[in-house]
């Protein structure tokens, strides 16, 4: 690992706790369930963990990406719990609900990193089996895996110093 990548890895690690805190708060308040962390690992490769991912870009004194990746059944339950709507496949409503959930997680996490003066982008939604999310080459993302009563999901966090 290069010195720059190691520095960025430290920055990413600093951002993990705010994301964990935000994830718990958003799931409990918006979905009525408490997610349980099942693993914390360095993300290898570009293939997403699950069927649908919401990607939010972050800029400021640090730059980064937060990816919330959900199994299909989890994403359908997110829509159901947020809006009471039943869906059987990924559609616009499911994508909007997952995007808004991710927006709230990123927004809440950002508040715990006020010194970095971060701004967050509008979430982009990617879906499909084995879809890929690419990070800059000098970023080592960390993957936080969760189980919950609505199904499994994972959050990837990758940060680097702004140029």
């Amino acid at each position, binding site marked *: 690992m290069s010195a720059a990548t190691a520095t960025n890895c430290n920055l990413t690690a600093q951002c993990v706790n705010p994301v964990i805190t935000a994830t718990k*708060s*958003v799931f409990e*308040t*918006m979905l009525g369930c408490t997610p349980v962390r099942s693993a914390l690992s360095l993300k290898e490769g570009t293939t997403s963990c699950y069927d649908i991912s919401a990607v939010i870009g972050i800029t400021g004194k640090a730059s980064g990406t937060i990816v919330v990746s959900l199994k299909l059944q989890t994403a359908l339950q997110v829509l159901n719990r*947020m*809006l*009471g709507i039943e869906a059987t496949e990924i559609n616009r*409503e499911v994508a*909007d*609900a997952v*995007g*808004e959930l991710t*927006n*709230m997680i*990123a*927004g*809440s996490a*950002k*508040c715990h990193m*006020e010194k970095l003066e971060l701004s*967050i982008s*509008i979430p982009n939604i990617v879906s499909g089996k084995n879809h890929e999310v690419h990070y800059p080459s000098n970023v080592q993302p960390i993957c936080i895996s969760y189980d919950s009563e609505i199904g499994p999901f994972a959050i990837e966090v990758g940060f680097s110093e702004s140029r």
Partner: protein
Amino acid sequence: MKVLLVDDSGTMRSIQKRCLNKLGVNDVVEAEDGRAALVAFEAQKFDVVLSDWNMPNMDGLTLLKEIRQRNQTVPVIMITTEAERSRVISAIQSGCSDYLTKPFSPEMLQEKLAKWVSCVV
């Protein structure tokens, strides 16, 4: 009670509308950005405005300032993920009546509405 509900996310508008309906508030006009909200505000009378911050075309802070140029008293509640101290201060300085950060529960929204609109229990 008539509410102007401003958010670029259809999901968030639906969630807030459901909360309002549960409170017995059914007269809700939706706008997907500040510009559309301002058009609605100039055409109709509202008892309270609920607005997101980050939106295309016209953001919530600009909308708040525009509303305050036209009306000093209507309650404007910002509902946003933007909870940093500096953001809250700039919203208050611009005439924001109250501030609710996402995520929020229906009870939290009810509490804010009850504070500003006497007919909501």
